């Protein structure tokens, strides 16, 4: 039998070079210690509430609900967090953990730049050194976030290898970690990579579903009928799903980036188009060719532009507990514009993938049903790119 550690069904595991094994073992031990530690949890709650602005609002989108004419729609406003996305939840947890472990330096990968900005923010706050790896292609798509990371004191290293996007940034961050381990923590940004990362990141993001549950019970006195979130690696989605996994009547729906369509090669919809494989430390589903070469994926959204998916999502898919649908660039851009005009909320293009599916789903459901959509981040960073997508040549 394969390594039982960090398994979600057949997925997960620790497929990494020997050089890193003691580092992940040390991380697992430290995490198991501190997650039960009263002082650690008190500090983290203070950071969440006083620094990141938690709990995030659960907002009843009344206009949207009326316009779509079906299920009642609530938005979980992770976009209102400090740094503008759910990424801060995980980063504050990991940075605090790293600090307790005596690490003085954080390294991270980033796609859209949100995780990089969040990591740079936590590093600034905690007085740690910070290096962020970002695909060169993404540094161009998300120039503003590159500036923010530098402003926060981080070094940003453009990654030129491969497709110069998120997967290459992950590879380069892993390479950097094998070079320098003793003072460095790899602050992985999603529920992926080798054990214990998928578990640690999920636990820090699970605050999203914990709050949704409390807020929903308070507002409606019952649980929602569906929770919808976008999935790249899958951290905001697993965070939104986690405390509902045992509530079998709550549909959990993950929205992957179909790019130009799942019948094209320009897609990043891993569960819809990928197959089982081993990459970036984990067994899961990956977009790959028949020889196991990882596919150069594409999405308008730099944050969903990843050829794999977190192992717990792969498992939830296998057992049929969560559904995964693919949403195209066009649909996501329409949803981006729709929420801006309807509710006065500019969502991240990543979150717009979840919105796009909800826009299709809500009218098919009864008015007494309830949908929660996680708005994982705000869309300021995407405005220039969407304008260009619509043929308007503006630059940040």
């Amino acid at each position, binding site marked *: 039998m394969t390594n039982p*550690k960090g398994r979600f069904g057949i997925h997960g595991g620790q497929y990494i*070079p*020997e050089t890193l*094994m*003691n580092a992940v073992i040390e991380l697992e031990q430290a995490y198991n210690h501190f997650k039960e530690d009263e002082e650690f949890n008190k500090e983290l709650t203070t950071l969440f509430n006083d620094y990141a602005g938690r709990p995030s609002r659960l907002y009843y989108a009344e206009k949207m609900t009326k316009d779509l004419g079906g299920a009642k729609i609530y938005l979980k406003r992770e976009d209102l967090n400090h740094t503008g996305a759910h990424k801060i939840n995980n980063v504050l947890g990991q940075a605090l953990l790293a600090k307790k472990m005596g690490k003085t330096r954080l390294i991270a990968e980033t796609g859209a730049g949100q995780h990089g900005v969040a990591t740079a923010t936590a590093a600034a706050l905690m007085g740690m050194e910070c290096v962020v790896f970002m695909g060169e292609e993404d540094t161009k798509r998300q120039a503003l976030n590159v500036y923010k990371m530098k402003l926060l004191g981080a070094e940003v290293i453009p990654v030129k290898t*491969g497709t110069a996007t998120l997967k290459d940034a992950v590879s380069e961050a892993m390479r950097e970690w*094998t070079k320098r381990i003793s003072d460095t923590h790899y602050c992985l940004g999603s529920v992926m990579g080798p054990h214990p990362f998928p578990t640690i990141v999920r636990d820090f993001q699970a605050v999203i579903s914990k709050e949704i549950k409390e807020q929903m019970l308070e507002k409606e006195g019952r649980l929602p009928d569906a929770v919808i979130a976008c999935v790249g690696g899958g951290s905001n989605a697993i965070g939104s799903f986690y405390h509902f996994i045992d509530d079998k009547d709550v549909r959990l729906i993950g929205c992957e980036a179909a790019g130009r369509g799942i019948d094209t090669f320009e897609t990043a919809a891993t569960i819809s188009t990928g*197959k089982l494989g081993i*990459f970036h430390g984990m067994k899961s589903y990956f977009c790959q060719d028949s020889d*196991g070469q990882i596919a150069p994926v594409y999405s308008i959204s730099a944050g969903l532009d990843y050829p794999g998916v977190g192992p717990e999502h792969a498992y939830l898919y296998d057992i049929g507990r969560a559904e995964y649908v693919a949403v195209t660039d066009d649909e996501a851009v329409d949803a981006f514009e729709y929420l801006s005009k309807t509710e006065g909320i500019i969502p991240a293009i990543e979150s717009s993938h979840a919105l796009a599916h909800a826009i299709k789903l809500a009218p098919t459901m009864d008015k007494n049903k309830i949908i929660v959509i996680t708005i994982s981040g705000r869309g300021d960073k995407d405005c220039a790119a969407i304008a260009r997508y619509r043929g308007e040549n503006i630059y940040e």
Partner: protein
Amino acid sequence: MSNIKKAFRNGKAFIPFITCGDPDLQTTAEAVREAVKNGADLIELGIPFSDPTAEGPVIQGANIRALAGGIKTDKVFSFVRELRQDVTVPMVFMTYANVVFSYGAEKFISTCARIGIDGLILPDIPFEEKDEFMPLCRKYGVDLISLIAPTSADRIGMIAKEAEGFIYIVSSLGVTGERSSFSADLKSIVRTIRENTDVPCAIGFGISTPEHAKEMAAISDGAIVGSAIVRLLEKHGKDAPQHVGRFVRAMKDAME
């Protein structure tokens, strides 16, 4: 006795690494033959992978060139079958877990055995995950090579006790690629290995000069050289085999 152990029978082993299909398979074949003619004891053949996370820029480049040239796993298999007509030294594959997994582990490993591949080096399969492939490797008589790193510390004994073929000692932290200094603990790593097994051990990662090879061979059973050879292929392309031969000769001479 595993075929790999033969590589260590006559003194210190020199183990060159070559990426299959960089720049093309014909050049790879000639480079292997030149290496063997000039004293290589074991050949490590790389099957290219799109995202080689344990490699530095030089070997990453070889992977990209080989894939761009249309290398497929099946082409590598038929290439080795042909190479085995005249090359008799032990040969191992170095690739990544997904290349083996996606081909079908049993189909991949049984094919290795059939075409004369003696071992498999998978840098993203640590001790904890080796059961992914180990039962099949045992079934078909292909050694799954264990790696030990400067950070392995308390893990060395556990890994060494179950090692087969030879042990690949990673010389220092980081990815593959030439470097000027190595971990200070190599001697004590070798000592701990020898307390636990008689499987030979060779040191790799960053070895690029005859002086390095001599130094590493003095404290272990051999030296593995990748990036320095791949660099010759990058620089000389189809004319590289003779340069590879000369390089192997210089390294081997220094080790004796």
